[in-house]
């Protein structure tokens, strides 16, 4: 209003525009969406593992992708291959055995995919590869049941029994905390808190190898 106020107001404006230009987009996750919360926490843990120098082993994920692509290719072949197009009136089903073979192959491949997910991966969110002379191979598993509030993180040596199943309690490094400890009120992830906890567990797991 008075001319003496003009200067501070102008400064306020400058600071305001400056704040708007700097800083990346902040992610806010809905605190009721447990699946997104788990995904954000898992991503932070994997980031912490990479920061600590572990290499992520993608073999099982790649195996699932290859099996899936193969199964879809077989399905497309069965559907679109010219000799197999069952056009009316060729009702006597040419190449019945080829179609039957495709169906059987598809069933086998998709069951294999499920087997990999159920038997080998279980709760694991990441597996690391062993570096000779460096950190051993680890299995990082986590669990956050739907609509529950406690996040369980377990890091064990990869060849330990039941390493990929949370709650095995085989002396593996594990911790359970409420998700409230990792997220701000507005849904922002407190990345440094979860990364700190993950780094602690990683060091614990690596140290247990030498014991």
């Amino acid at each position, binding site marked *: 209003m008075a001319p003496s106020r003009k200067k501070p107001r102008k400064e306020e404006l400058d600071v305001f525009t400056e704040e708007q230009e700097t800083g990346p987009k902040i992610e806010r996750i809905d605190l009721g969406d447990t699946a997104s919360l788990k995904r954000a926490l898992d991503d932070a843990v994997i980031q912490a593992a990479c920061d600590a120098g572990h290499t992520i082993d993608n073999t099982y994920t790649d195996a699932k992708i290859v099996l*899936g692509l193969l199964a879809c290719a077989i399905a497309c072949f*069965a559907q679109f291959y010219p000799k197999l197009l069952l056009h009316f009136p060729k*009702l006597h089903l040419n190449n019945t055995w080829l179609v039957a073979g495709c*169906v059987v192959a598809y069933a086998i491949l998709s069951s294999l995919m499920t087997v990999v997910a159920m038997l080998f991966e279980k709760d694991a969110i990441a597996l690391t590869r062993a570096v000779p002379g460096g950190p051993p191979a680890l299995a990082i598993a986590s669990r956050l049941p739907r609509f529950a509030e406690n996040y369980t993180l377990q890091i064990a040596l990869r060849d330990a029994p039941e390493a990929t199943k949370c709650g095995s309690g085989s002396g593996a490094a594990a911790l359970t905390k409420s998700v409230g400890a990792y997220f701000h009120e507005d849904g922002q992830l407190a990345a440094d808190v979860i990364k700190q906890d993950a780094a602690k567990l990683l060091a614990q797991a690596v140290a247990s190898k030498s014991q």
Partner: protein
Amino acid sequence: MEFLAELGRMNKRQLLLQGLNLAMIVTSALMIWKSMILATGSESPVVVVLSGSMEPGFYRGDILFLNQPKRPSQTGDIIVFNTDGREIPIVHRVIKVHQRAGNSSDIDILTKGDNNWGDDRSLYPRGQLWLNPSHIMGVVVGYLPYIGQVTIVMNDYPMFKYALIAVLGVFVLTSKE
């Protein structure tokens, strides 16, 4: 929409796996259909009744299950047939069967809808008076009432079909199970 933000947060491998999830659902439906074709021997094992020509037995919107029987057609069978040049097959009853002497699988068939005034000769291509077994897609062995109305609605209003597919696709792509 938040699902775009969800997809943006995933890395390449996770995106690929989600896409594969969707593809696996579609392809497993396709493979189930193919195995039904193999099991029943019929080209289209499940059909929807589109007209009221078989009332009061079948109404528009009923689903029919078909089979290719080993024995030749007999009068009284309800068959689904398609003549040359027709897009949509017809579900009607066999009312006359003429059999050639000495060859029981070479037969002439005449059909009629239960609710129709005359026989199907007006539906056959010009000059054709009889059907033969190669025209038959299957014999009706079971039915489910009313459920086919969804298919009829989706046929009459294709936008509904595309919208449904789009919504289902979004659900699968963003599901985390």
